């Protein structure tokens, strides 16, 4: 494992690899190392590039180095009554760089966006060893291409981020969870859609196997109270709702947001049009799947023991995309982690990838690459 101390070390390492035709795998906390095909590339840890560079709560802007532990960043902004609104849920040792590069989001995704929506600017070293800057350090900017968008969720395939500027937002003063129980998947889904489509400003909505839905109402106290009073009426045609204590709600949200304790050795993460979520879990329950649903149905976690790609095929049939997030090594060697893309988009994507990494330094075989996308 290579451990650059600063940007200049990193440039040297990448340049050497580019010239020598070697592959490198970037990592932060490496908590996602089990995502993607087994590979042999040398790891480059960005953990030593750590620390907060600038944080001005009133400007809603935070600049950090990538190796800074996510937990540290979250504690810092919480101390100022703020939050990373995309609600990354991290894991022991997760870094802010790895979190953003993995393009994550938590339950608040439906209303607050994901990492892509909160990365304002960055510094990075490309696959040819060149440092560049993209975006900026203010919340509103359209100068030049929005490269921060593509760096968020780039999974270390484009460039190594050495500095990230993130947008932060005020933390809600009050958060209440409403729950409804004993619903069919379809009825539960209809209730979630109704709540999210109402003007009660529901910031997250999840469904758990067994007919439970969770609705999150957050904000200033008088507003939260008023909305909690209004929601039972808005949902009258669907189901009665009750308030949960924060202690009772936390583990339920955790299960929906992370797929937590679902039983099964193979884990899929499916993004799909929410209207098809109920149909999908019905079909997959028939083959023994366990599931949890977040983002109002836009995210479905599936846990199974079967090691074929049936889950992916079912998701695709309903307009969804399935990522294989955890599986035995043998399966990961066989089945690509990321949902395959249509040929045109895949080739375009590969050309863009090489616009950052012409020599394929970061093309480690972890994810499928297109062999030759130059058919322009």
């Amino acid at each position: 494992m290579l451990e650059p101390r600063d940007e200049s070390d990193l440039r040297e390492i990448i340049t050497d690899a580019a010239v020598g035709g070697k592959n490198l795998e970037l990592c932060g906390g490496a908590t996602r190392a089990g995502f993607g095909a087994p590979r042999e590339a040398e790891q480059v840890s960005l953990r030593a590039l750590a620390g907060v560079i600038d944080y001005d709560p009133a400007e809603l802007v935070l600049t950090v180095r990538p190796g800074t532990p996510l937990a540290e960043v979250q504690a810092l902004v919480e101390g100022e009554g703020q939050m990373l609104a995309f609600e990354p849920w991290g894991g022991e040792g997760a870094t802010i760089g790895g979190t953003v590069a993995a393009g994550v989001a938590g339950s608040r995704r439906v209303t607050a966006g994901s990492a892509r929506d909160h990365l304002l600017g960055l510094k990075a070293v490309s696959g040819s060893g060149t440092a560049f800057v993209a975006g900026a350090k203010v919340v509103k900017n359209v100068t030049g291409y929005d490269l921060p968008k593509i760096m968020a969720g780039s999974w270390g395939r484009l460039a190594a981020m050495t500095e990230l500027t993130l947008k932060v937002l005020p933390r809600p003063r009050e958060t209440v969870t409403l729950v409804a129980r004993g619903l069919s998947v379809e009825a539960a889904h209809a209730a979630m859609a109704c709540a999210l489509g109402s003007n009660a400003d529901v910031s997250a909505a999840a469904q758990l196997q067994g007919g439970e839905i969770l609705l999150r109402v957050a904000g200033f106290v008088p507003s939260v109270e008023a909305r909690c009073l209004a929601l039972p009426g808005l949902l009258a045609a669907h189901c009665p709702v009750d308030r949960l204590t924060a202690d009772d709600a936390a583990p339920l949200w955790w299960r929906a947001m992370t797929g937590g304790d679902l039983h099964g050795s193979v884990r899929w993460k499916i993004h799909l049009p929410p209207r098809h979520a109920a149909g999908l879990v019905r079909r997959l329950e028939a083959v023994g799947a366990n599931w949890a649903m977040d983002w109002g149905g836009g995210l479905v976690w599936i846990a199974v023991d079967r090691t074929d790609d049936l889950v992916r095929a079912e998701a695709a049939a309903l307009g969804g995309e399935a990522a294989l997030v955890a599986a035995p090594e043998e399966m990961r060697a066989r089945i690509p982690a990321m949902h395959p893309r249509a040929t045109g988009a895949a080739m375009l994507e590969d050309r863009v990838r090489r616009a950052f990494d012409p020599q394929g330094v970061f093309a480690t075989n972890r994810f499928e690459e297109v062999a030759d996308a130059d058919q322009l």
Partner: protein
Amino acid sequence: MTIAMPLPDADTLERREEIAAALRAIVPGEGVITDADALRPWESDGLTAYRQPPMLVVLPETVEQVSAVLRWCHAEGVKVVPRGSGTSLSGGALPLADAVLLGMGKFKRVLDIDYEDRIAVVQPGVTNLAITQAVEGRGFYYAPDPSSQIACTIGGNVAENSGGVHCLKYGLTTNNVLGVELVLMNGEIVRLGGRHLDPVGLDLLGVVVGSEGLLGVVTEVTVRILPKPETARAVLVGFPDAERAGACVAQVIAEGIIPAGMEMMDRPAIHAAEAFVKVGYPLDVGALLIVEVDGPAAECDHLIEEIARIANANGAVTTRISRDETERAAFWAGRKAAFPAVGRISPDYYCMDGTIPRRRLPEVLRRMEELSRQYGLGVANVFHAGDGNLHPLILYDANVPGELDKAEAFGNDILRLCVEVGGVLTGEHGVGIEKRDLMPEMFSEEDLKQQQRVKCAFDPDLLLNPGKVFPVLHRCAELGRMHVHHGVVPHPELPRF
């Protein structure tokens, strides 16, 4: 008129008849315009100081036609400039003498509305406001609201990543678009994103939004629609000076409030607006703030009182809370009419669009005043105060020889100042031609090359909207792209640096 466009290609100009005939074979009937008089209305966009009739205009009606037009132009090496409604304030849709202007105005259909999943699928020529109009009957709206929303198209919004007064709370276009269908310069049709959140793979959609028509032609857009807030309330606050108004804005945010909109106007803008619309703005103040909150009534009632309290604590001299919709509309009327109002007090004005860290506002306004004296031109400021996006309006008279050049030089100095204090050249209007030559103020040569490599991945022959955004457009081959097969570099023995 200091911005130079690429020299027209003489061969292309000579082939004009042949090009028109070929395009007529693709888009029959009235869809190809070549007559000099008929071309005149297309010769500029919202940056009206720059005018250039296009070689010809083509107005396709189907995706297949767009694809065929681009494929043909690509094969023949003919440049193409996409256009929506032509309201760009940065010259993004300015025609080129040797380019086809591809107007998307006929793509006017709303294709699908899914209230359950809260999305709308529309063609790119649908106006921003028409999306809201299509869904408001069911209590929904499309959140980004540029002031030009009755005219500008969603295709143009995607290209410019447009914002509006409500983007502090609801985000820019990029935060509200789920997918596009895009035709590349070679005619290939690709779909990026779709009807769900966070699609697989690199976020190409994120780069296409805000790419100013340089990466592809957008032929379909899927947007998120939101339930209309139950209510909205606004407070109008006058301060003796911008310092205190700025301190108020900072405290509102520090107390955890993200208003739906937070707009500031300086004295010249207040006076111009009040003279124009007469809504009762206080005239004896140095800065005026309009803060709007939206959401459940209980929330609005609570927050508006909080904001009034913060305003008073920061030295407000007048504080008026809207009692009803009429009064709220009146507060906004002056702000929304600020541009035409300034247009009445000055023969011409030039609208700038930098963003700064908010805390630097007093200093930036002070230095802007100095520049104003130095150039002998007036300036009125409207300001998206919540996110630091400044719109200085420089007052000048194009009929006075040299004044336009002076206004441009003044504007450039303002933008340099924005970058100097840690801000950016443009917060929502785009680079276009207007800020093209200022890009090196913000980005190094390497930064710009990295952006241009992305351009090369979409349009390697640089035929789509050339002359915009990049101060120097390198040939793609010069940017050192090389073939890599399965991670193996050709001729690894050769040094590459």
